Structure formats: C-alpha cells, structure tokens
C-alpha cells in the first residue's frame, strides 16, 4: 500500500472489489445450472420407443413372453402359426398384466378372466378395448419391438 495518490488507490481497490464481485456473480451464474443439473429428475428412467424383446432362438410357436418396455410390461407372442405379435401387456380393464395361455391359444388376464385373441382384440370378459399393438421387426437374431 505504498500508493501516494489515495484517490487512485481507492479507485483501484474499488475496481478490484467490483471485479471480485463480478467473478463471484459469474461463478454463481455458471455453477447454478451445473448444480441444478444434478438434481434427481422427475422420471428416473428414460422411456424407450423400441426395445429388444429377445432372441429368435428363444421362441417357439405357441408361446409368449412378458418383457419390460419402458415403464410398462409388454407381451411378445409367437402364435401357433409361428407369427410374432407384440402388444402392451397391460389389460385394458383394470391394468393387470396379461399372459399367454398356450392351452387356450389366447392372451389371458388372470384378474377377471379377460381374454384377447392373437390380434389383441378383446373377445371375452370385461376388457373394454383391445391391447395396444406394437411393431415387431426381426434384425438378425434380435426381435425388436417398437411403438409405431
């Protein structure tokens, strides 16, 4: 502090203080979004619009498999004719998870006995609507199911 001109000194320190304040403000402006970025987002899992349901090898005609599709279960059915069909496995009645019944060759809901045919149409019992249908594509060995 060997500055003779006090006015000069005060101006300089003033500028330095301002500069310090500016740097702090700037740091806050930069760090605020970055810290916020780490907040737990409302939905912890990104919902995919397509999923690999399994390998072709694992399926034989007249069988079905429930798999996870985003936050919902879905069902992949290998029909008795060997055709692959995929639907939402959420029963349209009361949102139970449906299953494939090889003995009936139908999709069946255990909660109230709702029955869907292999096109997902509600054919008996309480379900008010057909099951949502998904697109099935086979690439190589993988069965890819997607929401069309």
């Amino acid at each position, binding site marked *: 502090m060997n500055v003779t001109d006090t006015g000069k000194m005060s101006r*300089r320190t003033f*500028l*330095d203080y*301002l*500069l310090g304040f*500016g*740097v702090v*403000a*700037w740091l*806050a*402006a930069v760090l605020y*979004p970055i810290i916020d970025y780490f907040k737990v987002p409302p939905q912890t899992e990104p919902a995919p619009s397509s999923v690999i349901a399994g390998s072709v090898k694992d399926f034989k005609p007249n069988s079905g498999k429930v798999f996870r599709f985003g936050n919902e279960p879905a069902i992949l059915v290998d029909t008795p004719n060997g055709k692959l069909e995929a639907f939402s496995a959420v029963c349209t009645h009361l949102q139970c998870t449906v299953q494939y019944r090889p003995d009936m060759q139908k999709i069946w809901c255990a909660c109230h006995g709702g029955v869907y045919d292999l096109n997902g149409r509600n054919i008996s019992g309480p379900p*008010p*609507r057909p099951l949502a249908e998904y697109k099935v594509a086979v690439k190589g060995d993988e069965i890819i199911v997607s929401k069309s």
Partner: protein
Amino acid sequence: MKKSLLLLVIPALIGFSNAAAAQTQQKKPVDKCFSCHTDIGDDKVADYTSDVHYKAGVTCADCHGGDPTVEDQDAAMDPKKGYIGIPKPSAIPQVCGKCHGAGKTAFKTNFHLNDVMDQFMSSVHGRALNERSDGPTCISCHGIHNIVEVQNSKSPVYPTNVTKTCAKCHSNPDYMKKFSPGLPVDQYEKYLTSVHGERNKAGDPKPATCVSCHSNHLIRPVKDPRSPVYPTNIPQTCAKCHSNKEYMAGYHIPTDQYANYKESVHGIALLQNSDLSAPACNSCHGNHGAVPPGVSSVASVCGTCHQANADLFDKSVHKEAFARAKLPGCVVCHSNHLVRPPNDAMIGFGTDAVCGKCHKDVPADSAAGAILAIRSTLDSLTNGRKDAETLLSHAEQLGMDVSDASYSLRDVNQSLVEARVQVHLFTAGPVKSAAEPGLKIVAEAQKSALAAVNEYYFRRHGLGVATLIITLLAVLLFLKIRQIERKSRQ
C-alpha cells in the same frame, strides 16, 4: 316312344320376332303337335291353352323342337330336325332364353323380360344349376305349361304365392344342404311371423315378399356388394316401399324412416363410411321376421351392440319407470331412426337437453341435482382437456417439448368415454369416479404445460441475468486491462 308319338309337327320356323305380333293373329297353318296331342287327350296341351305363351303364339316346337308341319310322328320328332323332347334341367334356361335372352327382341314393349335368362344364369340359382342338375330352373318357380302373367293371382310368383314358391326349396333342409349347407331354412317360417308375412297371408299383395328385397331373376349372394340386401344397400331397399308415401298410404305408419336414418350416426357410419358393423334396418327390426321392436324390447335390441350402456340402463331407475310409463327405453332420449351422436348437451335442462322432457330444474324434482352434477362432471373433464390442449399448444409454439403431456392427454379420452357410459346409471357417483383419472391427467397436463411456459420465460430471463453478469464482468475486465496497461506504460 309313346310320348314322342303324342307330339305333332308344325312349321317350326315361325319367326320368333313375330311372336309378340302373333298374339292377336289367327293360327295359320295347323300345328300338328298341338292337334295330335289334343287328339290323344294329353293334359299338357289342355294346360297349355291357358298359358300366356300359347296366347302369344308360342308353339310346342318353339320349345321342344322338331317339325310341326308333318303328320308322321317319326319325321316330326326327328332329333335331326332339332327335336329335344323334354329339355334337360340344365338346358331349360337356354330353351326359355331363346326368347328371354339378352339381345333378343321378342318383347318390344317389355324389355326387361328379354334378358332374364342371362340374369338368371349369373344369379345364385344359375350357379346352383350349373353345379347340380337338380338345381333350380325357370320352371321351378314359374311352372311349365300353365304359365300365367305375374299379375294373375294364380301365378306361383304372384306376391301372395311367391313366398310359398320360394319356400318349396328354401324350407326344405334336405334339398338346401346339397347347395348351401350353411344357409338357414327358417326364412319362410319367420316371414309368416312378420308384419309383411301376416298381411301377405291375409291376401294383401303390397307388403314385401321375398323378391321385393332379394330381386327375382338376378338374386345375388348377400355378401355380394351388388345385392340389394348387402348391408349398405338394405336401407335403400327397404326405403323403396317405406319411403313411398303413396304406396304406404293406408298403413298409417310414417315414411320418413330412411330420411332420418340417413342422417343418423348409424346411417352415416354405414352409408357414408361403409362401416359394415353399423346397423342397417334389419339389425333392429329383423329381416325375414321383420317387426318393430316393442317398447319392452328396445333396450335389449340396442343392447346387442351397446352392451355396457344397456346393462347400466337395466340397473337404473329408468328401467322400471319407463316400463311403467310405456316409454321405449333408449329411444326416449336417443330417438329411433334419427340417432344422433350423443353429446353432453343432452344432459341437463338446456335447449338440446333431453332430461327436461320429464324432469324440471326445481328443488321439488329430486333428480335435478344428480342431472346437474353429472353434467358438470362431464363438462369439467371436456373443458379441462380443451384448456390443457390450448396450454400445451401454446407451450409447443414457444418451442418447448411437451410431447409427454400431450401423449398423456390421450388417456383422458378413455376416462371420458367411461364416464359417459356411466351416465346410463343416472346417478352422479359412478360418473364422477369414472371421470376421476381423466381429471387427474388433465390437471397434470395443465401443470406441465404451465411449467413448460414458465420454463420458457425462465430460460430467457435466466439468459438475461447471465448476460448481464457476463457483460458486467467483461466491462470490469476491460477497465482492469486498461488500468494495467496504463500503469505499465507509465
């Protein structure tokens, strides 16, 4: 041989084109077939004298072939001269078609009789005949040697007779299953129970018979879109008579059903959108046993398709109340032929409301509260959805991603549909609980739309603040640099 002896030969080649003209002419040369067979007392000849064809100058040989001019039996009935004897069933349409075939001009004034043979051959009956020799031919319906005009009440195809004529085969399971095992054989029985059938039986030729709907010679399978009884054609087919004021005069029933039906949700679905699952006249009235559904059965008729609604209605207070007042169930609110797509305005006491027909918006009417509650629940759901959509589209215009919320709004529809179904219980509670999930989604969507809009402004304001800070810092830095440089230059 003996039969052939009975036939005589007359000049066969009287121009068929002259046959119509021959109606009034005298028999010129003696028809040996006719004279011989008369002599031996053949009753077919006796029958034939009353036949419309005899009067028109059609000779035996015109159908049976041979030479009617010679006396000698063998010469007259010589196959070389075209004698065919009794035509084989499969050949009968061709025999009749000599005059009644396409391109023939036998009937200068009655053209539609010209091409009946071709119509017949492309009909279900023609196909049946092609498949089996015992299939139907012309004579199955019209008879053989005693054919009279259709207008003649003795004709087997006269309106009061034709149903029995068709029933000869169509009510015979043994016969029908040879051709079409899946086809029912109870049409005639049902017909007799219908209003058409009852009147027909009483001798009234005007009510519909088989041919009124199915046509006559050119009967096509019901699944053929050209058939008059194909679902999309049925309304028009019924309307042929039922929309004809003159024709229906004397029956004292309205004639506006078709006009109303066309405008109805069912008519639009069937006639404009070709939705074959939509009901035509017969879906409610029946076809062969057509009767108007009675007051008591309306709900069950509608309930064949609208099952959930009918079930709820059956459990509701209106079921019994309507029955007591002899009110026809569903029709009370939805009308019959002119069923419009239902809307929420039907509930309440406004101009479009149907509740007001019986109820009054006064404290004395205990139902008024429930009516208004139901309406307000539905309104809050529809309006809430509309508001959410407006908000979301605003957020979208601002470039925010609200696709999740927009997607969730699709489930509101289900809730709304379910709530609207619950209306048929006519109490407020079930409607409310069905609407609940929808209201929740709507609230969520509105919230996220608002959040998105706020976020948009937050981003811009945030940028403004950040820019301000950075600018300030930059200016200060600039001052500092200047200061340092000035100092170093000193």
